[in-house]
């Protein structure tokens, strides 16, 4: 993936190039299904939709903010300690998000528990800072952060949708399967969907479908 670093004097906010920054990660450059980053959290918190949604939003916020901040500082950061600076910036954002969650959505923060802290080690964030925002303007870095964050959250929600629906019979804790009355017809929840390996299998199916549909991702042998 090559990101042009040229600076045009008056580029419209949503120029074609900028739109690509936002849209590329959704499909052809998806952080989870194409770059295969952030898999551990995709596995851990996709049992239910609600924690997956909160995790997704947290990652979008952290990634956008950290990208903008490092992009603003990009000409000031000493090269030798840049990884440490990136870590500090990400850790700062994550701790702030964690504190805010604890204060305002306590039950969700309990459910996410250590995984909020582990956003720090989410390779997507460090990867985007190192690869993109250290070399681009804040607005581009922001778009890139939001794009990757949304793409990550999207996959998380997609996986959580299947796991919660098939494993628990609910969506956002709403008993949809019971409402449809399928239990009376002899349907039972598949408890295996709630186990971690099924998250990877669902991700793998998503990757399969995506690769089959996207010609640019099909590898020639």
């Amino acid at each position: 993936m090559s990101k042009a670093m040229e600076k045009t004097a008056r580029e419209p906010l949503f120029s074609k190039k900028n739109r690509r920054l936002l849209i590329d990660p959704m499909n052809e450059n998806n952080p989870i299904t194409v770059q295969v980053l952030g898999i551990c959290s995709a596995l851990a918190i996709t049992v239910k939709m609600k924690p997956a949604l909160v995790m997704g939003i947290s990652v979008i916020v952290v990634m956008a903010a950290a990208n903008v901040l490092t992009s603003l500082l990009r000409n000031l950061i000493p090269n030798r300690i840049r990884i440490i600076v990136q870590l500090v910036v990400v850790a700062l954002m994550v701790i702030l998000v964690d504190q805010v969650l604890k204060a305002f959505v306590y039950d969700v923060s309990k459910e996410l528990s250590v995984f909020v802290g582990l956003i720090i080690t989410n390779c997507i964030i460090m990867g985007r800072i190192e690869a993109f925002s250290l070399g681009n303007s804040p607005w581009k870095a922001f778009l890139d952060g939001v794009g990757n964050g949304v793409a990550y959250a999207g996959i998380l929600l997609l996986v959580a949708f299947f796991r919660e629906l098939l494993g628990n019979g609910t969506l956002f804790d709403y008993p949809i399967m019971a409402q449809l009355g399928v239990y009376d017809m002899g349907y039972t929840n598949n408890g295996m969907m709630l186990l971690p390996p099924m998250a990877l299998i669902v991700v793998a199916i998503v990757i399969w479908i995506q690769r089959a549909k996207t010609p640019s991702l099909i590898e020639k042998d």
Partner: protein
Amino acid sequence: MDVNSNRYTYLFSIIMVVIVAVLLSVAATVLKPFQDANMVLEKKSNILASIGLVSENPDSLFNSVIVEQLVIRSGEVIESEVSAFDLDMANAVKVPSNKRSVPLFVATYQDNTYYILPLRGKGLWGPIWGFISLQSDANTIYGASFNHLKETPGLGAEISTAIFQDQFPGKIIFSDSYDGIEVRKGDARTNQQVDGISGGTITSVGVQYMLEDCLIPYKAYLLKQVAESTVETHIETLADSSNTNHE
């Protein structure tokens, strides 16, 4: 300015660390009251949950249902600097049980009296805790809830599920031979035994020790309460029967 000189690198890191430290401490200080309120609310709903009450607004329900919050030491109600609600069980259980100050919550709901006792003990990997509620005879369990910090999912962590907890209601905690509930390996028979969790032996045994350890400090006080209330009921029954006789 050379951003890669040693001088600049040191300067940059010092300034960065100071700014980050200030930001984080400001955030922590500003958000602390909200976080504390959440924890208080959670504790209240846990206490209510032990007598089977779930509410969207635990605060008001707690105030109306919990009629007394006592601190007990050696079978007596004592005046304590720390209120029963704020008493930290993690510290309390470090004191030998005969010298320990423990909180007791008395609830009245639909004309029934319940005693709610907090529990705290050790599982396999970390602390386990919970609440146990007793019926008005102060001996029969009405409800039990357990929780844990990091027991193994699917094994020890099962203590926080209904399958394990639903065994407790109806069991008795004090008898002539034993105080507490025995957690057995699949052969629970008497009304002082429950089945443990397969593969979660150490956590199950932890629950048993926790119950033994945490219930003893209440024994003298609870037995006294029951004795008094039995006398009262007895007098009432006598009064009732004498009234009936007169009529």
